[in-house]
Structure formats: C-alpha cells, structure tokens
C-alpha cells in the first residue's frame, strides 16, 4: 500500500514537473482583433516549428483593446508576455513601469537604423528624442486613400469635370483638389456620394482623420518636448485644415457621424463614395474580390499635400513590447531577436503584415507586391502622430469633445473650437505639472 502511494506521488510530481517545463515554452502576445493579428499568428507558427516554443496571439475587438490591456497592466497581471500596443500608450505604459525597457536591446541590434525612422520615433521612443525605447516597431501603418478608378476614368465624367473645374480629373495631389472631386461626385439623388472620412469620436478615429488634414496643412498638435500648445494647435494652418475637414463632411453619405475603418471600407464596397480614407492595414480586404465586388476598379493613393506642399499622414500601427509582469521575459526577448531578423521581416511582409523594416520597405519586391504598397512606402516616411504622454486619453477625449460638434453639426467656428481645445490641453498639462 505504502509503495503504491509513493509511486502515485512520484508519478504526480513527474507530471507536474513536465507540465511546468512545457508551460515555460509558451508565450502569449496580446493584440486587437483584425487581419494583421491573424498574419502574426501564421508567422509565429513558424517560430514554433523552428524552436518548439508555442506562441499564441490572443485578440480582442478594437473597441475593448485599450481598456482590456490597461486593466490587465494596472492589475500587474501576467496573462500576456507581450503586447502589440498603440503608439500613444508608450508614455502611460513606460512611466507606470508596465513595459520592459528595451533601450539596450534596441542599441545592440542597431534598430534605430534597421527600422524606418518614423516608426522608431513614434512606436518605440518615449519621451520624445530621449533615446529610450520601449517597443520594437511591428506593424507599420498609416492613413491612405482608396478610390473608384472606374468613376475617375469614365470619359464623360472626365469631360464634365474638366469643363467645371478647369483641370483634369485624376488622383488628387492636394486637399483642395480632393475637395473638388468630392463635390463633383456628390450626387445624393443617385445614391452616390463624394467622400468617406473618419468621424467616430469614441476613440481616436475622428482625431486621426483630422490629423491628416492638420499635418498636411503644415500644422502640428503641439510641441511634444516642451508641451507648448498655444499658437500651435490653434494656428492659422490648423484652422484652415479643420475648416477643410468640415467641408469634406458635407460630401459624405447620409448618417456618416460615427464612422471608422469598417464603414469607410463599406463606402467603397457598397458603391457609396468616390474616395475613402482608411488605414493601409484594411486595404487587403479591398483588393480581395470576395470582400469587395469592386476590387478590380479600386485604386489607392497617399494622403494628398496641403496648400503649401506639406504632405504628411496620421500614423496608425503598433510596436511590440514586453510586459514587466510576465514570467517569460527572457523567452520573450529571444522571440524578439528572431522577429527582427531580415528574413523574418520579409516573411512578415509576405504574409500580409506591414513590416517597419527599412530594407524590406525599400525593396522593389515589396513595393510591387500589391497595388497599395508603393503608396504605403511613400507614406511611412512622412507620418506624424498624436501625443504619447501618460494623459493622452484625456487629451484625446478633450479633442473629440471640442472638434466633433463642429465637424458633424457645424457648431461654433474652427477658430473658437481650437482656441478652446488649446485652453483644455493647457489646463491638463498644468494639472500634471508638465508646464508651469
């Protein structure tokens, strides 16, 4: 009897020992629920085949992504080993000690040069220009535009357009041209509309949309190093940019007041709009005939320039960070070393991920792989982003509160709205002792 018990205990111990060693070989990456996360899962399956370490990409819908991540981080939970987090989280997550400092790793592998400069600046570094890095640029993304080639290339439309505006109907080079084209195609009686833009104010949709105009008009949101906003967020360029965005809202389909990436792709697939703003990450669905009946006649272009020739776009995309509460930090670092290899980045791009690797982005092979890769490449070298300070969420909500009623309902003037926003932001920065 005693022997049997001893045997049983030994067996149990062995099982436990084995199972814990198996657990140590597992990594969990947390990300939002969208196609790139599926591509990443495919990529990490290859890592498992190579090393035997099982990596799972766990996802949650975009609307919960921020809340769920920070709830887990604030509770110092170890459910996830890595997170592919939004660029504006860097301040909040690094100052609170949620992310592992990757500066040494970054410098050792010379990632400042290996990855496209804008992705390093916005996905990895915090505070701005500090040389401290908290993430490895993983999914590059920015806002671009899709358009209906068949509408644009219709000879009758082209002739009518030329007669009305005095220049040829083509992909817009400036925001002013984009406005003309939107007006031209805006025909509510035919159930056809000019343009689809972001208007969702529940997270960063609307703000990203407006940023596209602001940055291309030569404006900025503020000085990210000194936290100065007066005269910057409410500059003359920004007022003009906001007025332009408001004008474009007039050429959107009816009910276009809570729209983000899903609706903006629908604008193309459902024949609603001539042009549509969206992140490059959502363009694969538009070239796929199964999800877009107009796939063959859908074209793409980079965010047009402003009146003074500035051309920038709002940054999307994320970097991958190691969570400080993870029990598998060492294993995670090994994974990152594999992830940044040139051949892995190339494979990542092949699978549909948007690599941030400068070498891959610059290669002919990448640029010719899809109809939008060239526009993506051009855009990734001229992107700008929102504030990444720990209180970014308050800044974002304040901007939504001020800008949304003006864009969608024409309440107040652009100048009043931006002046009020400057006051809000100043008060917030004072509250957190960023400015005196």
């Amino acid at each position, binding site marked *: 009897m005693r022997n049997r018990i001893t045997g049983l205990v030994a067996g149990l111990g062995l099982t436990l020992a084995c199972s814990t060693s198996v657990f140590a070989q597992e990594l969990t990456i947390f990300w939002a629920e969208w196609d790139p996360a599926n591509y990443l899962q495919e990529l990490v399956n290859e890592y498992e085949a190579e090393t035997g370490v099982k990596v799972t990409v766990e996802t949650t819908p975009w609307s919960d992504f*921020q*809340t769920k991540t*920070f*709830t887990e*981080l*604030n509770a110092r939970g170890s459910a996830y080993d890595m997170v592919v987090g939004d660029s504006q989280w860097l301040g*909040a997550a690094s*100052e*609170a*000690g949620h992310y592992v400092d990757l500066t040494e790793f970054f410098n050792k592998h010379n990632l400042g040069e290996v990855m496209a400069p804008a992705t390093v600046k916005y996905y990895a570094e915090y505070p701005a220009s500090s040389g401290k890095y908290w993430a490895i640029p993983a999914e590059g993304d920015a806002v671009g535009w899709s358009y209906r080639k068949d509408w644009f290339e219709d000879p009758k439309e082209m002739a009518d357009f030329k007669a009305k505006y005095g220049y040829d109907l083509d992909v817009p080079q400036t925001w002013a041209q984009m406005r003309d084209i939107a007006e031209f195609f805006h025909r*509510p009686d035919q*159930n056809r509309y000019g343009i689809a833009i972001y208007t*969702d*104010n*529940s997270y960063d949709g609307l703000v990203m949309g407006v940023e596209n105009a602001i940055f291309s008009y030569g404006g900025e949101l503020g000085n990210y190093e000194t936290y100065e906003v007066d005269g910057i967020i409410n500059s003359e360029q920004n007022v003009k940019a906001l007025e332009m965005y408001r004008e474009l809202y007039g050429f959107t*389909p*009816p*009910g*276009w*007041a*809570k729209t983000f990436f899903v609706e903006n792709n629908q604008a193309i697939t459902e024949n*609603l709009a001539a042009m549509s703003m969206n992140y490059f990450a959502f363009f694969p669905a538009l070239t796929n005939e199964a999800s877009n009946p107009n796939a063959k006649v859908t074209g793409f272009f980079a965010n047009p320039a402003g009146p003074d020739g500035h051309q920038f776009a709002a940054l999307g995309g994320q970097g991958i960070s190691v969570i400080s509460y993870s029990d598998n930090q060492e294993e995670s670092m090994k994974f990152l070393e594999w992830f940044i290899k040139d051949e892995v980045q190339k494979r990542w791009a092949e699978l549909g991920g948007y690599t941030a690797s400068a070498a891959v982005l610059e290669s002919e092979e990448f640029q010719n792989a899809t109809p939008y890769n060239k526009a993506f490449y051009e855009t990734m070298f001229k992107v700008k982003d929102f504030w990444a300070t*720990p*209180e970014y*969420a*308050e800044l974002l*909500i304040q901007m939504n*509160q001020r800008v*949304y*009623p003006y864009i*969608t*309902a024409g309440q107040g003037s652009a100048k009043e709205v931006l002046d009020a926003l400057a006051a809000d932001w100043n008060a917030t920065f004072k509250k957190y002792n960023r400015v005196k």
Partner: protein
Amino acid sequence: MATLTMTTLDPQSKAARRGLSDLAIRNLFIIPTIIFLIVFNIFPLLYSLGYSFTDFRASSNAPANFVGLDNYRTLLNDPFIWSNFAITAKYVIVSVAGQVVVGFGVALLLNREIPFKGLITTLLLLPMMLSMAVVGLFWKLLYDPSFGIINYAFGLGRFEWLSNPDMALYAVALTDIWMWSPFVMLLSLAGLSAVPKHLYEAAAIDRAGPIYTFFRITLPLVAPILMIAIIFRTMEAFKTFDLAYILTSQPTTEVISIRLYKMAFQEWQTGMSCALAYIVLIMVIAITNIYVKYLNKVKER
C-alpha cells in the same frame, strides 16, 4: 415580528437530528450572503469613497495624494459634466414617460377577455428579454438612413435618426421605450387584474362615464404598483449605458454613465471618477427617496 412568524425546526427532520438548531440553519443561509455583500458591495463602496478624496490613478505607480474636496469641486464646475447631467435628465423623463404611457396603455387594452391573450402577452414581453447590446446593434441597423427599415416603412426618405444631434437622444429613448414598455405593461396588468370587479359594476349602475371611472377607480388603485414600475425604470434609465453607447456617439447622447466610464477606464482618473460615481449615487438615492415617499402616501390613501 420576524421571530414570531419563523417556524421552529421539525424535531423529526434530518437537520434537527444532527443537532442543528433553527438559528444555526438561519445563520448558515444568511452569513455567506452577508459576507458576499460586504466583500463585493460594502467594502468597495467605502473604499471608493476614500479614493474620491485623492488624485489616485490606477494606471500609474504614483502614490495617491489627499486632495480634499478638489475632485468634487472640479466636477461640479465642469460645464461638460453639467451638460451630461442635463442630457441624462432629459433622457430619463422622455424614456420613462414614454414607457409608462405605452406600457399602461397596452395593459389597459389587454385587460379584457380577448382571444389568445396569453400568447399576445408573451410575445409583447419579448423585447425586454433581449440583451441590451443586441437591441442596440439591431436598432442601429433599423435607423440607418440608407437601408434602414424605419425610414422605408414611414416614408421618411433619408432622415438621419442617429447622426442628427437634436434627434439622436430621442432615437435612443425610443429604443428604450420599445424595450422596456413591456415591463411597465406587465406590472400594470397585475395591478389592473387586482381591481375588484364590483367597483366597476357599482360605477356602471351609477352611470359613471369611462373617463370618470378611469380617473376615480382604475388609476388610484393601480397607482402603487405603477409607482414601483416607475421607480425601477427611473433608476435604470439614470444608469443607462449600453444602448446610448452602442447606438451613437453624439455628444448630445453622452449620458452621465458614459462620461463616468470614459473617465474611469479610458482616462484612468480613478480618484476623480470615484467622486463622480458618488455624485451620481447621491442623486439616484435622492430621486428614489422622493418616489418612495410618494409611494407610501399613495398606499395610505
């Protein structure tokens, strides 16, 4: 009072034979519930009261500093918060009034002998059995200006229910009325069926008109139960979140609980949001108390 009505344990029962007294059994049932309530309700309630006087942020490692009544002062001076309260009040009034009118009206129609009465009542109860999130998502489709069935059915063309800032709150309230009128109807039906028939007979003999009968017999007798329905619905409408959050993101529909959610879980201003939650709690308790006072008065009559 309670001890008088409590029956003693049957001496033949299993529990009695194991030496359990009826007091022990009572404790066995009640103590876990009380512990549960204290741990998950009372303790967090008091703990968050403490936080409401600090600048604590759950997202940072910085220690919480005592700031006195600063959070309350900031909140009560914030014009956006006041607009959130005004929106909530408007929503509560429109939504609860609508539910009472529709719910009580339908109950009056059903309070007679009609064929398939049971089936009709059950079918009418379906909306309130659905999940709020599901209702929000499909009403969003119904309201859609391009392909929504509501505009099509009423010939409203491209009327924008949800993206028109002046209309959006009414559209949310309309959905809430659709969903919760059955609840008012159910309680009203119970009240109506309890009205003694002989009162109506007496009124008929006295040649009282239908309006007179309604205001002097039906309404006063149903009033207490109708008040209970109104209390429940007011409290629920005051706390409403899901419907408004899913249907639209107009600033004109940002009820106080949405603002609270954003403050607590997007901005992580934990101390400030605790203070706001307390302001809301005090308001709900005050409003409910007014109702309860009135309910007692109605009962006394």
